[in-house]
């Protein structure tokens, strides 16, 4: 039978290695160090079309992740999508901030981009961002392109 201290050493190493592996997964693989839900405030914005935006999509400003999309609802009175976001408390945005739905890369995931304005007052908990720009829908874009091409062609003749 193995000596008691050797046994303890091996089991101790095993447990430490297992917890270490979990920590590695949390820190290196997961986004544990990212935005936490605890210290954040929520903002909402209405979009005519959100395209493929999903809950938990990032909210970025100048390319930096400042929060996450916390929920998407459909407003049945105005017929728009109401997107709520939770923003890290560390970041403040002026009242005239504009929100647009952008795509990372050509086929990447969609995220919300915030662009700060010049207002001196900041957006507070639960307020709505008034200036919004909808997602680009590729079919509409192609449709517009074809329409304008057709119009050009019509002018020349």
């Amino acid at each position, binding site marked *: 039978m*193995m000596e008691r201290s050797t*046994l*303890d050493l*091996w*089991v101790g*190493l*095993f*447990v430490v*290695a*297992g*917890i270490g*592996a*979990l920590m*590695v*997964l*949390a820190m*290196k*693989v*997961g*986004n*544990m160090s*990212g935005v936490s839900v605890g210290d954040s405030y929520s903002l909402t914005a209405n979009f005519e079309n959100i395209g493929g935006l999903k809950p*938990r999509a*990032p909210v970025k400003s100048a390319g930096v*992740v400042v929060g996450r999309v916390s929920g998407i609802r459909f407003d049945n009175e105005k017929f728009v999508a109401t997107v709520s976001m939770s923003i890290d408390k560390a970041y403040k945005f002026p009242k005239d901030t504009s929100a647009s739905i952008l795509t990372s890369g050509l*086929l990447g995931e969609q995220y919300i981009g915030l662009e700060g304005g010049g207002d001196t007052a900041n957006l507070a908990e639960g307020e709505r961002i008034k200036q919004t720009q909808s997602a680009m829908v590729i079919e509409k874009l192609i449709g517009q392109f074809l329409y304008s091409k057709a119009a050009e062609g019509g002018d020349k003749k």
Partner: protein
Amino acid sequence: MATHKGFSIRTIGSATIDGVLRLGYASRFLARTVMSSGTSFTRPRLVIRELYFTGVLSLIIIIVSGLFVGMVLGFQGYHTLQTYGSESALGVLVALSLVRELGPVVSALLFASRAGSAMTAEIGLMKATEQLSAMEMMAVDPISRVVAPRFWAGVISMPLLAAMFSAMGVFGGYLVGVVLIGVDEGSFWSQMQSAVDFREDILNGVIKSVVFGLAVTWISLFEGYDAPPTAEGVSGATTRTVVTSSLAILALDFLLTAFMFRGV
């Protein structure tokens, strides 16, 4: 003909009743194990000894298989992703498939065949050589002295082993993807970190492995405790442990995945 038909229906009936009886017996066995696990906590040395046999001795197989699974994922994932010009998503593919599915499932399958079969054989043989009865004669409860420490050792070591498997797999994917093939290191890690969520993915993986650890140790201990006290009986019980545990792991994995990741 009629008797023949009656016979076959009777077979189904008796098989069902046997199955239900066995399930009930197994549930009572589990309940008794949990109820009488006080000794395992007042004398942690018993659990530590079993942790050595189920956990530490399974390390080699878990680490080596994790590394190889990760490396294979790296090759195959790269092969498919480069067709669409999105090799940089290799990290996401490797990490998500490991943390969500392959880590918990493959390590539980290995655990069942490495540690589960050993547990069944050990307890079955203890029963066959009447060591368990001898304990009872000495007023030592074999469930709290032999079964419960092994149960807790299995439940504790399974999530740790699964975490190590996933971590080694990610490292293997990194070795093949970044070091060997030359995927950009920055995008490998950053895309992985932005796609893998701690609560949603990693914690759910841990929950999965805890459930698998519970199921595998329960099945192994019960099969050992229930084995007919013959050489044939013990060998049959060991085989049943591996088969039943593997099926239980895969079925539970389907159920848990359906609950956890539906529509995500």
